[in-house]
C-alpha cells in the first residue's frame, strides 16, 4: 500500500517536471527547426562574383498568438547575409531580396530551395558537407535566435 502510494507520488513528480520542462521550452515561443545549409565553395575572390555565396534554410514555427517576422540574419561564415526569395514566373526562376518573412500566429513558414532562403554573400570559408555553420536569425518580436545549420 505504502509502496503503491510512493510509486504514484514519484510518477506524478516525474510527470509534472516533464510538463514544466516542455512548457518552458515551447508553449508559445517561436522556434527555428531543421536549419540546414547547401554545401558551397569559397571562391578565390579574384572575380567580380566575390568569394562565393551560399544559402541557409529552416522552418520557422510560431505557436504563439502574435504575428512575428524574420527581419535579418547574420553568420560568421559570410561577409553579408540577406533574406531572399526565389520564385518562378513564366518558366523563369527569379530571385529577389525580401525585407522580412512573416510567420503568422499558430503557423509556420518553410524556407526551402526554390523559395525563401537566407543568402550568405562573400563566404569566408567553404561550406563543407557534414560540418555546421552558425546563423543568427533576428525576429521582430522574439529577438535573436542562434542555430547551427547542418551543411548538406
Amino acid at each position, binding site marked *: 500500500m505504502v509502496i503503491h502510494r510512493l510509486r504514484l507520488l514519484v510518477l506524478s513528480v516525474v510527470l509534472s517536471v516533464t510538463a514544466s520542462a516542455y512548457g518552458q521550452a515551447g508553449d508559445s515561443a517561436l522556434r527555428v527547426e531543421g536549419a540546414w545549409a*547547401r*554545401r*558551397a*565553395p569559397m*571562391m*578565390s575572390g579574384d*572575380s*567580380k*562574383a*566575390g568569394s*562565393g*555565396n*551560399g*544559402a541557409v534554410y529552416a522552418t520557422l514555427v510560431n505557436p504563439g498568438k502574435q504575428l512575428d517576422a524574420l527581419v535579418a540574419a547574420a553568420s560568421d561564415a559570410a561577409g*553579408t547575409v*540577406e533574406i*531572399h526569395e*526565389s520564385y*518562378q*514566373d*513564366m*518558366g*523563369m*526562376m*527569379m*530571385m*529577389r*531580396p525580401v*525585407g522580412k518573412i512573416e510567420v503568422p500566429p499558430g503557423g509556420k513558414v518553410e524556407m526551402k*530551395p*526554390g523559395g525563401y*532562403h537566407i*543568402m*550568405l*554573400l562573400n563566404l569566408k570559408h*567553404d561550406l563543407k558537407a557534414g560540418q555546421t555553420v552558425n546563423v543568427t536569425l533576428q525576429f521582430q518580436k522574439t529577438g535573436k535566435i542562434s542555430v547551427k545549420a547542418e551543411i548538406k
Partner: protein
Amino acid sequence: MYHRLTALLALVFLAAAAGAAENPALKSGVFNPPRMAPDFSLRGSDGTELKLSRYRGKVVALGFGYTFCPDVCPTTLVDLAAARKKLGADDENFQVVYVTVDPERDSVKQLRDYLAHFDPTFVGATGTPEQLAGVYKAYGVLISKKAYKESKAAYLVHHSSFVYLIDPEGKQRALVPFGRSASDIAHDVKALLKR
C-alpha cells in the same frame, strides 16, 4: 524579341506536357517528335573550344545558370551530381554542360572552380555576348539582369531554370523542370542511354 521567346517557351512547355502524357517512359517532359539539339561553339571551362556535338554518344544534361546564384543553381547542380552517382558504370556516358547566364562575372576559371565543387566532370561554358545570345535563343532560355537597392549584390540574374536532356544521337529529348529528384533524372538518363 521577348514576346517571341515567351511564345517559344510556351510552345516548348505545351509540347513537353503533351509528350509526357503520351510517353510515360520518361519522368520529365519529352519532346515529341525529338529535334536535333542546336549545336554551338563556346569557351569550355576545361580550357578548350566547347562544341556540343563533341559529346555525341553520351547523354548530355544542358543547364543554364550562374555561380553567384546561391539557391536554385546549386540545388540543380547537386541534383545532377547525385544523379550521376546513381548511374554506376553508365556515368562515363553522361555529361553535364553548364552554360553561364552571367558572362560578366563567370570567367572560365570561375566556372571551372565552381563546378569542380559539385562534380569534377561537369563542364562550364561561356563566350562572347553574341555567341551566348545565340545559344540562349536556340534553347528558348530567358535571362534578365536586375539590381536591387535592398541587396549588396551588384545585380541578380533571373533565368530559365530547366535542364535539357540530349540523347547520344544529339537529339533534344527531355526538359527537366527545377526540383526534379536525382532519382528521376538518373532514371531518364538511363532510359535515353538504352535506346
